[in-house]
């Protein structure tokens, strides 16, 4: 890598995950010359360890401080990136999972891809606890369609009002539910909770150069045939084909540079291998380093001595940080002990889910939490045995040993099913990220400090999940074995669901938001944000599809402005 990448790019895109990958794809398709800068390395498809068994790895492939999500995990993700630490306020235990590889966290995300519905865009009107989005569902629908057409979505449409479907000519056939998924569907429906096959960003039919899933390898390691969508296999190769894309890897962007007129002139970066600094010049800059990393770049880009950073006249950079509140309730089913064995792996990810159904009840004010959640369903004997998951099967009868223990473990294998709640958090004053006043990263730039607090909205929602999940498990004949403790103890760790968004909100008011309705920073005409930072709310519907649909749309806005000379 050269230190100074000095070409006349139209756009420098920072980060190659969901947002950055989509920006590079759409911009290059529109003829724009893009330089994509990524702090991690590139990984060739043939280097993805798809088929290795857990015992073909050190320590049976469990997570370590080097590879937090497991030895084979593709995201090269971690909380403990040694060169890039972060801090939290006292009493706050924020988990900031980051990626450092071309493709970002899309290389190993769980591919759940529900659309937001009409209500999700107008929460300001519905409960007033957060602003409306500056776009409506109807305006976003064509961009969802276009995004899903390139991403590739399999599943069924629910027909429910606030869970819009995918056009039938785009939607690929759903994947057959597993045995335990059928049981949970039947039980949920009986207790009044809808249950459907879910939308996964996993191909069940070939799409372009990408092949349909062959149902045998853990998607979180990456999918070299491109069946599981990831930015690195499904967007960046398409961008590359246009001849308009340059990729610079192992380059960590530190700041956005601005000229005398206040416009962005490019970015500075540090080569993570050598520590040598460089700069890339371009007519415009797109930040898509993930919500908090983008906030960090903006806050670091202020004039020396200024705490406020760039594009922060509103003071909102880093504010409105939300994650997904979650809880897991696990059921043990005597009826599933020693059940008939079969290949339960499927497409590895969940094939079904339960969408939120309580909008009317919430409008009537009969629930003590304002926002929805959905339910994910897992375990059975879907995954290959893992070293630190065997306890559940071996310890039912105390810590016995010797004859009989094998039968005991075999009997319980596949007889647990868990329900995972994924809720919506309402942004609050106490949840934000800012620059740490003391600690610096390896290259001398300030690290992020997190402040975070769940509110009663989230705790009440967790309690509702616990009650509902117990009802579903018990109606199916199971016994709840964990997850029913006090909501304050059972709620997921802040950041733990890796859905951190909102730190550079878009909106219609320059005093209250960082970006305009197209993700363009109010204060810097040629600077855009295209990651989860712009999301004004964080619906329980996992964020990546919305991030990408917005990046698709907002790239068109940027391309148009580049073309007509506004930039």
């Amino acid at each position, binding site marked *: 890598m050269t230190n100074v990448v000095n070409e006349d790019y139209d756009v420098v895109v920072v980060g190659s995950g969901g947002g950055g990958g989509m920006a590079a794809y759409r911009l290059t398709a529109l003829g724009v010359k893009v330089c994509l800068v990524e702090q991690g390395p590139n990984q060739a498809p043939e280097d993805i360890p798809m088929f290795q068994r857990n015992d073909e*790895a050190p320590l*049976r492939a469990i997570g370590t401080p080097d590879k937090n999500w497991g030895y084979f995990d593709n995201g090269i993700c971690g909380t403990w990136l040694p060169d890039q630490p972060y801090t939290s306020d006292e009493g706050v235990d924020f988990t900031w999972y980051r990626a450092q590889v071309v493709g970002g966290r899309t290389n190993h995300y769980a591919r759940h891809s529900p659309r937001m519905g009409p209500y999700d865009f107008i929460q300001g009107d519905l409960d007033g606890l957060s602003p409306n989005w500056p776009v409506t569902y109807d305006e976003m629908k064509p961009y969802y369609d276009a995004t899903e057409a390139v991403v590739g979505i399999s599943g069924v449409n629910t*027909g429910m009002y606030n869970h819009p479907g995918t056009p039938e000519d785009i939607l690929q056939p759903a994947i057959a539910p597993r045995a335990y998924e059928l049981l949970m569907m039947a039980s949920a*429906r009986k207790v009044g909770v809808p249950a459907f096959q879910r939308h996964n960003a996993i191909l069940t039919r070939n799409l372009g150069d990408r092949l349909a899933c062959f149902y045998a390898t853990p998607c979180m390691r990456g999918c070299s045939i491109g069946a599981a969508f990831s930015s690195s296999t499904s967007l960046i190769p398409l961008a590359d084909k246009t001849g308009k894309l340059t990729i610079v890897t192992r380059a960590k962007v530190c700041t956005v540079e601005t000229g005398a007129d206040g416009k962005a002139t490019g970015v500075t970066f540090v080569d993570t291998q050598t520590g040598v600094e460089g700069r890339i010049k371009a007519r415009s800059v797109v930040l898509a380093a993930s919500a908090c990393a983008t906030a960090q770049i903006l806050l670091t880009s202020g004039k020396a001595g200024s705490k406020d950073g760039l594009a922060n006249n509103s003071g909102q950079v880093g504010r409105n940080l939300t994650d997904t509140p979650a809880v897991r309730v696990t059921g043990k089913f005597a009826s599933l002990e020693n059940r008939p064995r079969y290949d339960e792996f499927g497409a590895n990810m969940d094939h079904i889910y339960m969408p939120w159904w309580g909008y009317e009840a919430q409008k009537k004010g009969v629930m003590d939490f304002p926002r929805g959640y959905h339910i994910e369903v897992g375990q059975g004997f879907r995954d*290959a045995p893992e070293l630190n998951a065997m306890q559940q099967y071996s310890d039912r009868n105390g*810590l016995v040993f010797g004859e009989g223990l094998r039968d005991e473990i075999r009997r319980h294998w596949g007889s647990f099913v868990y329900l995972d709640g994924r809720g919506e958090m309402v942004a609050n004053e106490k949840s934000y990220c800012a620059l740490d006043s003391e600690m610096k990263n390896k290259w001398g730039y300030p690290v992020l400090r997190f402040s975070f607090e769940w509110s009663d909205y989230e705790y009440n929602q967790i309690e509702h999940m616990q009650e509902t999940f117990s009802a579903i498990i018990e109606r199916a004949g199971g016994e709840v074995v964990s997850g029913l403790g006090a909501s304050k103890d059972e709620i997921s760790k802040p950041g733990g669901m890796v859905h951190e968004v909102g730190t550079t909100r878009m909106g219609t008011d320059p005093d209250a938001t960082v970006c305009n309705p197209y993700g363009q920073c109010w204060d810097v005409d040629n600077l855009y944000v295209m990651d989860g930072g712009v999301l004004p709310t964080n619906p329980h519907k996992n964020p990546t599809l919305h991030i990408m649909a917005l990046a698709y749309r907002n790239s068109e806005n940027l391309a148009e402005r580049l073309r007509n000379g506004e930039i």
Partner: protein
Amino acid sequence: MAAALSVVGGCAPKSIKTAAVDGIAPWPSNIAVPEVDHAGYGQFPDYFEIGEVGPWPKILSDQHKRQLEKFADLILPATETAPAPSDVGIAEFFDDWVSAPYPWMTDTRRTVHHGFAWLDAQAELMFKTKWLDLSDAQATEILTMMSESSRESGPLTQPAWMYKNLRELTIGAYYTTPEGEVDLGHVAAQPLTGDYPGPTGEALDHMRDLILSLDLEWEDLPVGPPPYDTSYAFTGDEPK
């Protein structure tokens, strides 16, 4: 997502018991434990270079390995159809584990070094011989004692922790081998062409019987590969 990190075996208590209690050997916590301070496999390991064990030097002696094998083989004795842990590389697994330079292997490293010295001493006290020379019946007697003792208080807290920790690792390491998988009856995924079929006939029969016996609906469930019945609808969330 599930928390990706969890400490196997938990933390052994650090308190040191030296006072002799009748019939129980003191925990030999003065025995030196090798320092491990080399690098791990890093954030970008070469999957095709690194094999089943990490790139760190291994620290266990042959004697430790034999002692661990004896322990593991008592936890999961071989059957007519399933091999013993010692036949599927349990010693190499433990050597990799206790030699790894990551924080949560530290407890096990100490446990192995102190624990097998304790087992030798205890074997000496009870049977006038070493752990490796005990008959299965004698060794089982000691393991039973360890398994039934409190990890919170009393003279056997450390042995009880040792038992729990090494038992858990033995089970986890065993069932992640191909032989362990077969014994578990786990059907490993095989690459398929065409749609994933879902449960086999036998598994579907079991599930249909169960669902019907619970007085739940079977008919409108999406069973097997596409296309699917779409008769089920949920309309509760429509605006009024």
